[in-house]
């Protein structure tokens, strides 16, 4: 990508626009601003942004509806700003195709980190399909279906490998319970999260240095899971 990434900021609150837009510009992004869902959709068409920061509480359209309309026009990652306490909106938007979320009130670094991850994923997916990826201190080899820590192979069951590979493929990005269940067990399993809990516990035992206190395979409460490549230093 030669030109600076272009970000569309969608929020009806002028105060948020006035604080966030200069912040993004200061990091070299080009920023367009929209205040309503309809404006957002037409800006996606006209300006072709590389990433969309979308507030779910817009006055004219329901947040998930805006998400759906944007998805029809563009594959650009969507980072949701959610002011509501309810997790349902977030999960619904993530299921529809949003990539990540930040809950208001958030700090600058939190938002910038989410944007960086989402943009990096965009670059990765534009490159050739990878045969192996390194996540944290692990190396995952897709075609040989094995996981190495240093020179030691960690033995995983096929389902455990699928789960790890899925999360690693979407590293640093939150995947909803629903998305994971559907990818690993199929559409009929989306209402049976207990499968996922059990499998995640097994995987953590094999991957995490301290399974009771995971550093890589993190829960996003009520939403889903995220594999972090750079665990918090604490």
């Amino acid at each position, binding site marked *: 990508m030669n030109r600076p990434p272009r970000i569309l900021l969608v929020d*009806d*609150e002028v*105060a*948020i626009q006035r604080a966030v837009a*200069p*912040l993004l510009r200061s990091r070299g992004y080009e920023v367009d601003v929209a205040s309503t869902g309809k404006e957002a959709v037409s800006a996606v068409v006209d300006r072709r942004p590389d990433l969309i920061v979308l507030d779910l*509480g817009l006055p004219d359209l329901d947040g998930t509806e805006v998400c759906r309309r944007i998805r029809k026009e563009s594959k650009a990652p969507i980072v949701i700003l959610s002011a509501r306490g309810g997790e349902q909106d977030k999960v619904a938007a993530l299921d529809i195709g949003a990539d990540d979320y930040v809950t*208001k009130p*958030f700090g600058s670094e939190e938002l910038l980190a989410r944007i960086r991850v989402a943009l990096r994923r965009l670059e990765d997916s534009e490159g050739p399909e990878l045969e192996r990826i390194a996540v944290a201190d692990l190396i995952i080899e897709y075609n040989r279906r094995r996981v190495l820590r240093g020179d030691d192979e960690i033995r995983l069951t096929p389902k455990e490998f699928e789960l790890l590979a899925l999360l690693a493929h979407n590293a640093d990005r939150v995947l909803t319970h629903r998305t994971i269940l559907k990818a690993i067990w199929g559409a009929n399993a989306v209402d049976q999260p207990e499968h996922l809990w059990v499998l995640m516990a097994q995987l953590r035992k094999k991957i995490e240095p301290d399974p009771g206190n995971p550093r890589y395979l993190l829960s996003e409460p009520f939403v889903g899971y995220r594999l972090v490549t750079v665990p918090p230093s604490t």
Partner: protein
Amino acid sequence: MTRSTDLRTLSFGCAGIVLITFLLRRWPQVSNATTVALGFLVVVLLVATTARLWVAVTTSIVAVLAFNFFFLPPLGTLVIADPQNWVALLAFLAVSLVASNLSAVARDRTQEAVTRRDELARLLDLSRDVLLITDSAVANSSLAAFIARRFDLDYVAICLPQGAEWTVFESGSHGHALSPVDLSAAFRAVEASTGARPLTAAGHDLRVVPLRFGTKPIGLLAAAGRPIESGTLDALAALAALALERVQFLDERKSAELARQGEELKSALLASLSHDLRTPLTAIRVAADNLQSTWPDERERREQSELIVAEVDRLTRLFQNILEMARIDAGAVSNDARWVAPSEIVDAARNRVEHALRGRRIELSVESDRFVRLDPRLPAAALSHLLENAAQYSPQRSSIEVQGTVSDTGLTITVRDHGDGIASGDLPHLFERFYRGASAKIGRSGTGMGLAIARGVLAVNGGRISAENCADGGARFTIVVPAEVK
């Protein structure tokens, strides 16, 4: 039917007998035992159909005596010579007595039917009254009053047991002291037996019937005065019990409804607060981060710090609104009336929302030579919310017109803007808490509390607020506060 009408009928009967006697004595050629007997019988029957039995019997006896005295030989005496005439006389007496009796029975039946119809009509009227009872606070006493009125009773009491005590709701012109002991005894008797027969109890000549929900007795109905048939009394009690049950049901529904509204309000408050707090907090947080970093130049730094100040102001106003609303809810808004000039109120309101009115043209027309006696803080608070609204929902360059007038009954303040007016769908909900019109949500911050607060503070001293659209565009809000004027 009274005694005097009986006597009048009796005298008419006797006069009829005298008249017939006179006529038949005058024309002996048409008079024989048969014509005399039939003539008298007509009179007796006429009397029997209109008066009570004793009047008819008395008339019959007078007729027998006249028959004997004037027409049966030997004439002029009460002696009867011919045994045939004895038979005729006795037959006449028997016929007239039977006829009297028959007609009296028929009339009693009619009378009874009329009474029945009358009581049925009273019951029907009562049932209508009962359906109109909606206020549970006065339901029991108004029920007693309705029964007393509809049935012309001297005394009606609805007695409901409360443990060992009795709550008695009385109505009627007479009072009776009902002793709880007697009532409890009567109630126990009702509980023990399954039938609904009226009980005569409580010392006085009171009729007492049980009030039942289904088959379970819940109290007693006592009545005195006009005699009422026991069947009617039972029906009356059933109706009264239904009325009590209905009021209880209405009460339950009302409290369920209140609870539901409370829940709705709570979740509206939470949703509103969640959004209204998080937005300024986010803006402040990000702007503060921006100020800490090295990238902003002087102009950008100024912008970011202005943003922080503006958002802190917004949080402060939100906080004030929540506080005001809580004070209204708690009934903690004080009302200290004093003499005040209308312009003082308008000035106070303008000062409160200076930030919103900055750069706006306000056209004032406020009456200056009369004073009102009220707590100026209340209308000023309400007016400030109206001004804030007007500034927010009309173009920056248009004017806002404020008019204050004093009438003999109080103070009226109107605020008129030149915005888009109020959508007709929003008008009925305008003063509801957290209600924000669809168009109001676009690009404008607001909490949906301002107008609800305006209404709430005005209500403290009996003031009202209303909204309308002007014919030539824009909205007009009117505050009316009743007050002493000088």
